[in-house]
């Protein structure tokens, strides 16, 4: 019997609650794996599924409400903090903002299936001032769908999962080493990708003083506000004369931008 199976059998519901809570708060823990294993064991050992589903939903909603409250109280800064500790390039905020603005609160129903979006969506709802009751409704729905699919997958594919767990158990510590090496490799790649992106930004960027010098010197750069509608709603201030253009509007508005002048982009 694999170690994971032992833990799930021994600690079941508390394990599910803690893992889901930690993952929804942003920690890299495999809570979906625990749900799938529990689902498989529920079929093989006749264990109750509804309490596991409720534990997962409760943990998920608690974590998301915390993120929502942080979004309400700290505004856009919390999104920047999330992206600072995220391994994805800095564009993660704008991309997820665009997704959220396109689909609104109903996107919470599927947010947990989209990497990155699941962590950003709850604080985003707080930042834009979404109604708490509506947020709770859609978030609970999303948690139910996500947890339910995890448990159901375990129940449907319990035989295959049992074989996979037996294989892991037979590999012993080698499986852990392989998994740890793969995870370390992925983290190292994302870290390198992020460093390369910021190195490019540092080389290309212009300071506020340099921009003022350009403007005062008659060079007339085109200043472009690339914040999303949500970010501009949260902070309506703008650099005088700035053109508004979100990532989604690039194709529509690119013809309006002069190629012979400097284009200065800014967000928050």
């Amino acid at each position: 019997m694999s170690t994971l199976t032992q833990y799930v059998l021994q600690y079941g519901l508390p394990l599910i609650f803690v893992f889901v809570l930690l993952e929804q708060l942003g920690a890299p823990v495999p809570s979906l794996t625990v749900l799938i294993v529990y689902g498989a064991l529920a079929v093989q050992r006749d264990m109750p599924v509804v309490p596991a589903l409720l534990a997962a939903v409760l943990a998920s909603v608690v974590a998301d409400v915390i993120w929502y409250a942080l979004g309400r109280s700290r505004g856009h800064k919390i999104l920047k903090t999330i992206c600072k500790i995220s391994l994805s390039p800095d564009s993660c905020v704008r991309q997820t903002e665009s997704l959220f603005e396109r689909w609104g609160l109903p996107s919470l129903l599927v947010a947990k299936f989209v990497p990155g979006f699941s962590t950003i969506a709850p604080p985003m709802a707080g930042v834009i001032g979404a109604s708490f009751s509506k947020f709770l409704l859609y978030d609970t729905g999303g948690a139910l769908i996500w947890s339910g699919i995890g448990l159901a997958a375990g129940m449907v594919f319990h035989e295959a999962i049992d074989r996979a767990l037996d294989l892991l158990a037979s590999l012993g510590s080698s499986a852990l080493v392989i998994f740890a090496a793969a995870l370390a490799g992925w983290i190292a790649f994302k870290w390198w990708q992020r460093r390369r992106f910021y190195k490019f930004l540092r080389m290309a960027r212009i300071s506020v003083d340099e921009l003022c010098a350009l403007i005062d010197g008659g060079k007339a750069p085109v200043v472009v506000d690339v914040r999303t509608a949500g970010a501009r709603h949260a902070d309506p201030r703008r650099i005088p004369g700035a053109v508004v253009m979100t990532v989604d509007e690039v194709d529509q508005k690119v013809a309006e931008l002069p190629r012979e002048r400097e284009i200065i982009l800014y967000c928050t």
Partner: protein
Amino acid sequence: MLIDRGFTLVRPLAGGLDAWVAGGHPVEGEPLIAIREMEA
């Protein structure tokens, strides 16, 4: 995205809007908090 479309003179503003405001430069529009205080 602009560079992919052939623009070569594209530069991000270091520090963004926050740096512009911190430098004491003028802005258009008022922050929401100020608007709410004005309406109160």
